[in-house]
């Protein structure tokens, strides 16, 4: 593991007599994408703005490349090497081109260099055709693309994203997340993303930090946090969705097979042989039976042992050990009819269409 690009020790932020943030330690590895997830008011934005040096911590230290940010000048120089994109696009009342060059202009970047980087950033986010338009007349998606491109034009060492997609409609959001994922792969930028959408976090991040009441309740790899939440809060927040990491071993006619922990999972999609994939299955898409149903249209069947049954009103969540963790949501009636108990052996099935490809 390389030296962290950013390290935080004993960070505290107080507003009057209320402690709003308490982070004993937190590090960012270069090139990593860390998602801060948590409900509204959990401290995601405060942590993000503190890490971006926009809020001065009440106590604790932030070290960038091992050097603590202590003086006003050090914090200012640090801010010139990182940047933050907000939920609102916050564009200036000028053309898209001026907006993309705004940060570079503040850095006194030479005109020719600025023009080149503006063109590059615009091309990356597919907004070259908008360069001479007024930023006031952009759609929500175009404005947020402009805001992201403005940040990338600076070539930041760390990019902080504060719920950048939450104000967008679903199709626009999907397209922008795909583009951002591609840009992040190309640039290997270190990113901290605050979001309350766990699917968004899973698609972009390597590391998840679940926040609760100004603290990091759990920090770890995406699959680890999703499948092994440390407490009830994290479990409730991440929804215990099954997340599996695997490798593509076959692919034909829009269907691929991934090897996951010694078994095979079939999913829809075109993937290259040997590609690493992360797939997710929502518990409500998993059905349980005592014997393998021959007439079932599901392509994925896994024998497993019930490890835990958690009642959830009219449903129960059944956790299984199938050689990997799998969760299923069943009705109380099915639970009774199938006589499901902990340690019972069952067959869990789900369709190839129920498998979400989260990240490549």
């Amino acid at each position: 593991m390389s030296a962290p690009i950013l390290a935080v020790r004993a960070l505290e932020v107080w507003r009057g007599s209320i402690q709003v943030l308490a982070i004993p330690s937190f590090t960012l590895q270069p090139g990593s994408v860390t998602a801060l997830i948590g409900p509204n008011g959990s401290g995601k934005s405060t942590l993000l703005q503190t890490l971006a040096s926009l809020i001065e911590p009440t106590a604790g230290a932030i070290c960038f490349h091992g050097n603590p940010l202590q003086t006003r000048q050090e914090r200012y120089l640090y801010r010139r090497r990182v940047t933050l994109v907000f939920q609102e696009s916050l564009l200036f009342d000028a053309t898209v081109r001026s907006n993309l060059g705004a940060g570079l202009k503040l850095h006194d970047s030479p005109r020719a260099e600025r023009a080149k980087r503006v063109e590059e950033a615009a091309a990356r986010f597919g907004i070259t055709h908008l360069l001479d338009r007024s930023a006031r007349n952009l759609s929500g998606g175009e404005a947020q693309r402009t805001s992201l491109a403005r940040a990338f034009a600076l070539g930041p060492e760390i990019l902080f994203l504060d719920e950048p997609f939450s104000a967008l409609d679903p199709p626009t959001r999907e397209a922008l997340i795909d583009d951002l994922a591609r840009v992040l792969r190309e640039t290997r930028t270190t990113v901290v993303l605050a979001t309350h959408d766990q699917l968004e976090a899973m698609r972009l991040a390597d590391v998840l930090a679940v926040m609760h009441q100004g603290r990091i309740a759990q920090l770890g790899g995406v699959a680890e946090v999703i499948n092994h939440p440390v407490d009830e809060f994290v479990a409730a927040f991440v929804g215990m969705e099954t997340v599996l990491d695997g490798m593509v071993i076959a692919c034909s006619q829009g269907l691929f097979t991934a090897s996951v922990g010694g078994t095979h999972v079939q999913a829809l999609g075109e993937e290259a042989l040997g590609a690493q994939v992360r797939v997710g299955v929502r518990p409500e898409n998993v059905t349980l039976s005592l014997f393998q149903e021959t007439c079932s249209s599901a392509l994925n069947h896994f024998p497993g042992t019930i490890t835990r049954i958690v009642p959830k009103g009219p449903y129960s969540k059944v956790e299984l050990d199938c050689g990997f963790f799998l969760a299923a949501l069943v009705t109380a009636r099915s639970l009774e009819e199938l006589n499901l108990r902990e340690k019972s052996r069952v067959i869990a099935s789900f369709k190839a269409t129920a498998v979400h490809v989260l990240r490549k």
Partner: protein
Amino acid sequence: MGLIWEGIKEALRLLFTLDPEVLKITLLSLKVSVLATLVSLFLGIGAGLLIALNRFPGKHLIISLVNTGMGLPPVVVGLFVTIMLWRNGPLGFFEILYTPTAIVIAQAIIATPIIAGISVAALQQLPPNLRLQILSLGATRRQLVWLLVQEARLPLLAAVMAGFGGVISEVGASIMVGGNIKGYSRVLTTATVMETSKGNFDVAIALSLILLLLAFSVNAVLTYLQQRKRPR
């Protein structure tokens, strides 16, 4: 109607013959009001920035005071400035009472709260996170202030227009601190008052028309500056 028509004819005559006295009064009016507006622009936008961008106890009270100051009666300002600049007053040693400088001071006191009040409102209506966004793009404190002023330029120019409109049309303070001295501190408004009281309605109408023309011209220039180069 005849009176008005005579006034318009007299105004045109005074304008086109470039009557030296009218020209002098007009130029002094313009000079005094532009100078007063510039002083209050500096003080008003400065105060507006300080109030809008900082958090401090009593902020709402200060904003209320500034807003009250937007309606400051010119005669009260005239009285206050006269007392301050009176020979035996605290600033009497400057010996500037009944000079154009005294008019500039009085007019600046009238316009500063107008510009400050509109500036506070203009800066407060910017998105709250814009300040953080600009800082996170690597701006210095000075660059931050400049960008915020640029973003609020439309309402800020409206503030300048309101400030200029307040002082060019003001008469009470100008007459009290300027003294309406012929050829020295006589401006369009004080001359209009004097000519009206003498019953010279034609000259008074002429001066009023020139005043209107002046106010329109300055505002036309400011409006042009406000509306130009807006990309589509």
